[in-house]
């Protein structure tokens, strides 16, 4: 019998209370007649089915009750749904991002076995350097950890495709056969590179197309295979087409080219140009791999002390290939969203509680006619659940809509589509979130209300200290979380200002840029003729002030760094510099000041003495306080020492360049990263092996709207070289603005969160005080009858709000500091304890409190004592 009673616990309590005894009686009588086995079998199935049905019946009833209640109080319903949707929308959106960046497996078979390999040089603070080709060859033969290793040349190679209408500017990646073998993605059609394609012997020159490119050229993947395309005036065959989702190293890649295209100069130990990926052997673990590669690194250091001194090997899971900044950014957004959701929950809890109290008469009546307390709790709980479900659904919609904005926050280093995908994890998260928030904001008020409901007619609720303390605690928590969010946003906002105030070293207004990438193999005279013609005609346009060419615009490429040999200086003190080739007038056009000496000029032709223009910071490094003009610098072009780091002995083998001018420094690596000193050489003096560095970015300064020049510029380039693809034009200003795109996206998201939480906190305070005022109307009336002034009453309620705010701030400040400390990698030029930011956050929170409490306080102060006392 006990067993049957236990079984009855499956029923809702109200049902059990009503019929439990009778059901036991029925069961007892049956037991006398029927065989135990069949009796129990039928009893269990009967109970399970009917208990579930009874629960569903009740849920239906309660949902109907909830919806009827919402129809009767649409204001409340809208507010509650809005709060739930905002709270859950924020978290669901942030989780979509988190899931995409940190959780979802990368789109490769057995993706967890994929790693990226780096050269590390901790002495020079380079934890993740690209890899020199010769080192990679040694890693391949010496390691015992990988089933395959692949590589690609890190910078994207701009390519021009002709023969399909307008010349197309394409992004090419030079990759080896190991690259495809390691990732393990089969081509959609045709084949990927085989080891034969890594050398320039044997197979013909062929390329692999992205799905996007194949479709745009030939409608479908299969018919692209085997065609010859016209690429940079060569005619490679299309070997294969990758599936649409394949985006390595990023989404912008249009085609993959074989390693054989890389000039021999790349096969050195000093030039770190390769990005390396590898697949762990089945029995390898990260620990064993790190140990193995540490040994390899040491052996290479011993074998090649000149190049590899201090160089180790870094092994990083491919999933984690992103800066700590990106990681922190994603986690910070998620944490902020969780904070916002907590605020929303606290708000809802207070809202639901106030409403439950408002309906206490209804509840009391229901209890009086026999509804158990359990039914009341259940009803309120169902209401919370429905609210959470609606909120979660709205949250999913919000996440879906804001995916494009989130794409800005996806680190570009991850080899995948930047637009976060909604998958089952996001869905599951929304469901769990709904469940958890229901418990968080639903249980307390249901319980309190049901407890209070029994005594409502005794009016003890007003004196129910415990529930008031709980409600005040919720408001304090809201305020505290808001202050933390405000501090975080404040710090990021200030960082943004600092970043934007960084002087890039050039002036962007009125400058248009246009990319015309000539093929690397273009013969020098043809290249020079092209620059000459384009620049002369551009300068002839009416609004053009000046025009010039550079290899890589500032802020578009962090690499291109060379070690400079300087006579009279120890080789260990030789500086690394950003090397760029420019045409005359580049500095004038982009607004980089010439501080002394002169610009490169037309007379510095190929056979004239080699000239160099240096940036100011190089003087401080090399010849402090001295005149640099006329001094000599040595670069390892075209000498045998290209393969190794030059030593002082080798200087005589190197090419000498004479400094003719000094210009201002430019933020080559962007606004936030420290740049190396810059070395500019004349485009006309570009050594043949340096074809990759040939100028390709045209800059034009114009009066009026520079974009109006676009058609004319396109025409000039087209006439100079009909097969030349053009990308752009775009404003130089946009290039700089792009620098802060990630920060801006971060700020937009977090500011939205902070704004919403501020609003919610204000609503929360207002709700709490309005509720307290409504409960204390009589008390206020009596006080005023006894001589209290309106000002006293006003002060009493506003004071109460401010006390809550002060407690909230006291809780928040240490939390905010901890949060700020954990996100220092996102801060720029601001300390995590920035006083002004904290003070502003506190002021904003106090102002919100004041605003929220004013209206209820004024209402309390305008109470008419005679009316309220008579009402009593």
């Amino acid at each position: 019998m006990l067993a049957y009673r236990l079984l009855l616990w499956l029923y809702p309590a109200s049902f059990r209370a009503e019929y439990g005894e009778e059901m036991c009686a029925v069961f007892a009588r049956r037991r006398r007649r029927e065989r135990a086995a069949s009796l129990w079998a039928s009893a269990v199935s009967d109970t399970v089915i009917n208990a579930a049905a009874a629960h569903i019946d009740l849920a239906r009833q309660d949902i109907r009750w909830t919806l009827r209640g919402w129809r009767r109080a649409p204001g409340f319903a809208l507010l509650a749904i809005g709060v739930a949707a905002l709270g859950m929308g924020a978290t669901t959106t942030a989780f979509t991002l988190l899931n995409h960046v940190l959780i979802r497996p990368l789109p490769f078979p057995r993706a967890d076995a994929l790693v990226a390999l780096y050269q590390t040089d901790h002495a020079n603070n380079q934890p993740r350097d690209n890899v020199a080709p010769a080192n990679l060859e040694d890693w391949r033969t010496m390691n015992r950890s990988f089933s395959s290793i692949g590589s690609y040349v890190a910078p994207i190679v701009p390519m021009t495709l002709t023969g399909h209408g307008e010349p197309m500017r394409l992004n090419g990646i030079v990759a080896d056969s190991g690259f495809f073998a390691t990732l393990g993605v089969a081509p959609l059609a045709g084949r990927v590179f085989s080891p034969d394609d890594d050398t320039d012997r044997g197979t013909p020159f062929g390329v692999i197309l992205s799905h996007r490119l194949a479709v745009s050229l030939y409608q479908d993947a299969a018919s692209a295979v085997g065609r010859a395309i016209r690429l940079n005036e060569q005619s490679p065959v299309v070997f294969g087409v990758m599936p649409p989702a394949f985006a390595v190293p990023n989404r912008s890649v249009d085609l993959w080219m074989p390693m054989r295209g890389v000039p021999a100069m790349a096969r050195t130990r000093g030039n770190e140009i390769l990005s390396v990926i590898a697949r762990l052997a089945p029995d390898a673990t990260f620990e064993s791999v790190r140990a193995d590669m540490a040994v390899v690194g040491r052996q290479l250091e011993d074998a090649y002390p000149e190049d590899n001194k201090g160089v180790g090997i870094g092994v990083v899971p491919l999933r984690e290939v992103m800066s700590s900044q990106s990681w922190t950014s994603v986690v910070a957004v998620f944490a902020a969203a969780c904070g916002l959701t907590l605020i929303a929950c606290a708000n809802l809890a207070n809202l639901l509680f106030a409403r439950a109290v408002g309906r206490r008469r209804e509840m009391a009546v229901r209890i009086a006619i026999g509804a158990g307390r359990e039914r009341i709790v259940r009803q309120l709980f169902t209401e919370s659940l429905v609210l959470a479900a609606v909120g979660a659904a709205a949250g999913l919609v919000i996440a879906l809509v804001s995916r494009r904005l989130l794409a800005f926050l996806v680190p570009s280093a991850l080899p995948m589509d930047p637009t976060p995908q909604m998958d089952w994890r996001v869905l599951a998260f929304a469901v769990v979130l709904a469940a958890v928030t229901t418990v968080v904001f639903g249980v307390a008020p249901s319980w309190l209300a049901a407890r209070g409901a029994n005594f409502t007619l005794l009016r003890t609720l007003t004196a129910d200290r415990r529930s008031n303390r709980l409600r005040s605690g919720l408001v304090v928590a809201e305020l505290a979380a808001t202050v933390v969010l405000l501090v975080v946003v404040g710090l990021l906002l200030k960082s943004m200002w600092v970043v934007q105030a960084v002087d890039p070293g050039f002036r962007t207004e009125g400058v248009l840029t246009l990319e015309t990438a000539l093929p690397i193999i273009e013969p020098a005279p043809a290249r020079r003729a092209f620059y000459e013609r384009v620049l002369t005609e551009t300068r002839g346009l009416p609004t053009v002030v000046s025009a010039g060419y550079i290899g890589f615009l500032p802020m578009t490429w962090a690499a291109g760094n060379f070690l400079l040999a300087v006579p009279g200086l120890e080789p260990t003190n030789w500086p690394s510099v950003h090397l760029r080739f420019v045409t005359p007038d580049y500095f004038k056009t982009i607004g980089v000041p010439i501080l002394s000496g002169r610009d490169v000029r037309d007379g510095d032709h190929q056979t004239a003495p080699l000239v160099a223009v240096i940036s100011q910071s190089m003087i401080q490094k090399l010849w402090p306080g001295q005149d640099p003009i006329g001094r000599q610098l040595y670069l390892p072009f075209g000498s045998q020492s290209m393969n190794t780091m030059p030593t002082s002995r080798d200087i005589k083998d190197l090419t000498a360049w004479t400094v003719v001018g000094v210009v201002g420094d430019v933020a080559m690596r962007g606004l936030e990263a420290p740049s190396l000193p810059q070395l500019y050489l004349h485009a006309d003096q570009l050594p043949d092996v340096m074809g990759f560095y040939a100028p390709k970015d045209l800059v034009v300064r114009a009066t009026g709207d520079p974009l109006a020049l676009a058609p004319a510029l396109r025409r000039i380039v087209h006439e100079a070289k009909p097969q030349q693809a053009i990308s752009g034009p775009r404003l130089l200003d946009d290039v700089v603005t792009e620098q802060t795109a990630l920060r801006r996206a971060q700020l937009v998201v977090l500011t939205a969160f902070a704004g919403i939480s501020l609003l919610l906190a204000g609503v929360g305070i207002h709700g709490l005080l309005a509720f307290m005022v409504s409960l204390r109307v009589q008390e206020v009336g009596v006080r005023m009858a006894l001589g209290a002034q309106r000002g006293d009453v006003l002060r009493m309620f506003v004071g109460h709000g401010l006390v809550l705010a002060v407690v909230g701030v006291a809780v928040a400040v240490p939390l905010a500091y901890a949060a700020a400390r954990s996100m220092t990698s996102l801060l720029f030029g601001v300390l995590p304890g920035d006083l002004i930011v904290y003070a502003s956050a506190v002021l904003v929170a106090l102002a919100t409190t004041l605003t929220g409490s004013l209206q209820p306080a004024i209402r309390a102060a305008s109470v008419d004592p005679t009316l309220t006392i008579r009402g009593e």
Partner: protein
Amino acid sequence: MDDVSRLLPLPPVTFHILLALADEDRHGYAIIQEVTERTGGALMLGAGTLYRSIHRMLEQGLIIETRERPAPEDDDERRRYYRITKLGVETAKAESKRLAELVKFARQRGFAPGRP
């Protein structure tokens, strides 16, 4: 729609319970016994099915709980007795009529014995 037709068609268990209460008030176990007997053992209501139906039928007003109790020697105080209401009777009649119509159609198509 009136109260009766809103409830049609009746779930079979509800119809059986109404039939069981047609001639006299019964408590839960007596309803089970009556239904079992009448169907020759084909339908044996479980306690859960019975009381969930009763709960719903009380809400719908098809039956009421009666306070009249049998002589103390036949009574068990745990038992609750149910009586069919006027609405219950009308609903049962309407359901019977609905079923009869249905059978009539079935006969016309030769699916049921007897003359159309």
